[in-house]
C-alpha cells in the first residue's frame, strides 16, 4: 500500500491522508544532495546537526563596505 494513498478517518468521520508520512529534507553532503537524512552516516549526521547559518547583512565590522560595493555593482 502506498502510504501517500492511504486514507484514514478521524473522529468526525473526515477522510484524511498523510498518516505516518514524514517530511523530506534535502541536504548537501560532501557536495552531493541527499534526499533523506536517513542515509547519512553517523559522522555526517552529527556534522549536519552542528551547522550554523552565516549572516549576510550583519557582517562583522570591516566587511560592511565590501558588501555594499558588491551589492551595488550588481
Amino acid at each position, binding site marked *: 500500500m502506498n502510504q501517500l494513498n492511504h486514507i484514514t478517518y478521524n473522529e468526525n468521520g473526515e477522510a484524511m*491522508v498523510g498518516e*505516518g508520512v514524514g517530511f523530506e529534507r*534535502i541536504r548537501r553532503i560532501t557536495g552531493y544532495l*541527499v534526499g533523506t537524512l536517513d542515509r547519512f552516516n553517523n559522522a555526517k549526521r552529527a556534522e549536519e546537526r552542528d551547522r550554523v547559518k552565516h549572516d549576510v*547583512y550583519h*557582517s562583522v565590522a570591516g566587511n560592511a563596505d565590501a558588501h555594499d560595493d558588491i551589492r551595488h*555593482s550588481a
Partner: protein
Amino acid sequence: MIQQIEKRDGRCVFFDVTKIANAIYKAAEASGGHDYQMSMRLALDVADYVDANCPTSTPTVEYVQDAVEKILVESGHARTAKAYILYRNERSRQREMNTRLMKIYEDLTFQSAIENDIKRENANIDGDTAMGTMLKYGSEGAKQFNEMFLLEPHIAKAHREGDIHIHDFDFYTLTTTCTQIDLLKLFDGGFSTGHGFLREPNDIMSYSALACIAIQSNQNDQHGGQSVPNFDYSMAPGVRKTYWHKYRDNLAKALEVFGLEEEGLEAAKALVEACPGKPVLGDDNGASEYIRSRLLERTDEKTADSILAFTLKYARRETERATYQAMEALVHNLNTMHSRAGAQIPFSSLNYGTDTSPEARLVMKSLLLATEAGLGNGETSIFPIHIFKVKEGVNYNPEDPNYDLFRLAMRVSAKRLFPNFSFLDAPFNAQYYKPGRPETEAAYMGCRTRVIGNVYDPTREIVNGRGNLSFTSINLPRIALKAEGDMEAFFAELDSKIELVIEQLKARFRIQSQKRVRNYPFLMGQGVWIDSDKLSPDDKVGEVLKHGSLTVGFIGLAECLKALVGKHHGESEQAQRIGLTIITRMRERMNRESRETGMNFTVIATPAEGLSGRFVRLDRERYGVIPGVTDRDYYTNSFHVPVYYPISAFKKIQIEAPYHELTNGGHISYIELDGDPTQNLDAFEAVVRYMKECGIGYGSINHPVDRDPICGYTGIIGDVCPRCGRREGEAVSIEKLRQLGVYKNHNSDTIGYHGDPNEERDRRPNPLR
C-alpha cells in the same frame, strides 16, 4: 607421545612434527639460515617439550606455537625466534581480518542500513537493496584483499591506523577516479556502448538522451564522478539541427496550408537545401529572403510573407518546446538511470554558462527552468550537479550577453541548491582561459575535483578527456596532536606523511598503468579519455593516463590548528597564517614532484564522507577527548571553517579564498544561508559576487530544502507544514487539501500534489491560522 592436535576451529587432526620443522625452517630462512636438519632437531625438541608439559592429551595449536617460541629462545636461536614471532603475528592478523570480514558480511546481511553505519558509508547507495548489499560485499572484500596482499606493509599500517586514507580503496587495482567527457567528440560519427552502436544524434532530444547514456556508460568504467565540462557548447548543435528540421517541416506545412503543394515535404526540402546559408535560431542567414524570391515565382507577396511568417513562428516555438522537453528528460534520466550494478545513479556534473549562441542559451534556460520545476511530483532533483561558470564580459555584469542566465541560475539555486558557481576569473583559472576555446575553461567534477593544468603535456592544458587518477588524504589533526605544540616536529612529520602518500600514489599508478584498453570498454574503448583513441584494445593505458592527476588531500585543517595553537583559522589571524603555511608546504612538495617526474601531482581539499568520522574516532581512542579537536563526531572538511562556528558569510569567504588558489586539484566553499533565499535573492547574489571578488574558484550556497510529499510544499518546514498545517507523520483532511487546490487525483498511485511550475509559482504558503 602426542597423537593429535586441536586446531583453532576445534577440529582435531593428526600431529605431524614436520609441519613444525617447516615453520621453523621458514623463520630461519627469513633471517638467513638454511639448515633443515637443525629445524627438524628443534621441532623434535618442541614435541618432547609439549609431551612432557602439556596438561591435556591433545594440545592446541596456540600451545604448540608458544612451545616453539620457548624452545627457539632457550636454545639461542634469537633471530629465528623473532622471525617466527613476526610470522605468527602476521598470520593471526590475517586470520583476524578474515574473521572480521565474515563479521562485516554477517552485519551487511542481517542488519538494515539504519543499524549499520557501513551501509550508509556512501549516502547515495541504498544499502538495503539487493544490488546495494552485493556492492558492499564486493567492496569490503576487495578492501581486505588489497590491504593484505597489495599494499606495502608500512603503507597498509598508515592506512589502517588512520595516518592517511586511501580513497576508493576497494577500487585500488581496478580503475581511476573521474573524467571530463567531451560529448561533441564522442558524438562525432556516433559511438558504441559495448552493447550496440548509436548513430550521430540529429536533434536535441537525441543529444540529451545520448549525453545521459555517455555519462552512464563511463560511470561503469570509473569509481568517481562523471562530468561534462561544457554542456552548453555540447548541446547547441542539437538545437541547431532541431531548428533546421522544424524550419523545413513547418515550411512544408505552410506550403500545403496555403495551397501551393499537395505534399509539401519534398518541395520544402528542396527549397531549404538550395538556400545560400542554413537558417539558425539567431540568424536567418538569408534563407527567408531566398525562399521568398522562389515563392514569388508561384504566388503573390502576401501569401509568400504568410508562409514565411508561419514557418519562422512555429520553427522557433517547436524548437523551444523540444529543447525544454529534452532538458526535462535529461534531468529525469540522470535521477533514475542506474549504474554500478544498479545500486547507484551516476554521479553526474554539468558545467555551463559561457556559450552565448542562441542555441546554447536556449539549452541553459530550458535546463534551469526544468530544474526549477522539479521532478514528477515537484521534488528537488539530486542529480546532475549543475556548475554555472561565472565570467566577466560573458555573464557577470548586466551588460554581459548571458547575464540573464546568471540571474536565472541564482534564482534556481536559491530554490533547488543547484547550480553551484565556478569562477573563471579567479587568477588560477584565468591563466588557462583562451577566448573561443571552451576546453580551456576550468571545470569542476562532482563535489570539487579540478583537472586543467598539465605538466605531462603543457601544450594541452585543457579539461576535455582528462580527470583524476587517484587521491589519498592526510589526517592533519593527528600530526598536530603528535607534535604537542612543537612546530618543527609538526612540519617534519607532515613532510614524512606527504612522502608516504607520494610513494603510495606512485605504487597505485603502476598498477593502473598495467591495465589495457579492453579493461575500460567505454572510457578507453570509445576514446573518451584523452589520446585513448590512438590505442588498440590490447594496449596498456599507462602513457595516456599521465594526462590525469595524482593527488594528495587533507582533512581537518581547523582541528589541526586547534591542536597546534589553540585556535582555528576562523578565530585567529595567527592560525590562518599557519594554516596557509601548511597547505602551501603540501602544494610546493607536489609541485616539486611534478617537475621531477613530469606527471601531474596536485593538492585537493578532500571531500570527506566516511572519513570525517573514522579519523576522529581513531584519534579519540589514541589521544582522548580534546576540546575543539576530538570532541565532535567528525573532523571538519579540508580547509573549511568549522560548520559549528558562528561567522558571517563574508568573513568565511575571505578566510577560505586563499586556499582555493593552493588546492589546484580541487576545492569548494559553502555558505549556509538562513531562511528561504528565494525570498531574498539580493543576499544570494551578494554572496556569489563576493566569492568571485575574493578569488574563490568554486562555491555553493546551502539552505534548507524541505518538502511535504502530501501537499507538495517545497521550502522550509519546521515542525509544521506552512501550506497544509500538518505535522510530520500526521494526517490532514482531504477536504482541506481540496480547498488548497493540491488534492487532484484520488485514484492515482501518487495522490496529492502534481508538479505544475506555473501553478507552483503563483501559490503562497497558507498561514496556519
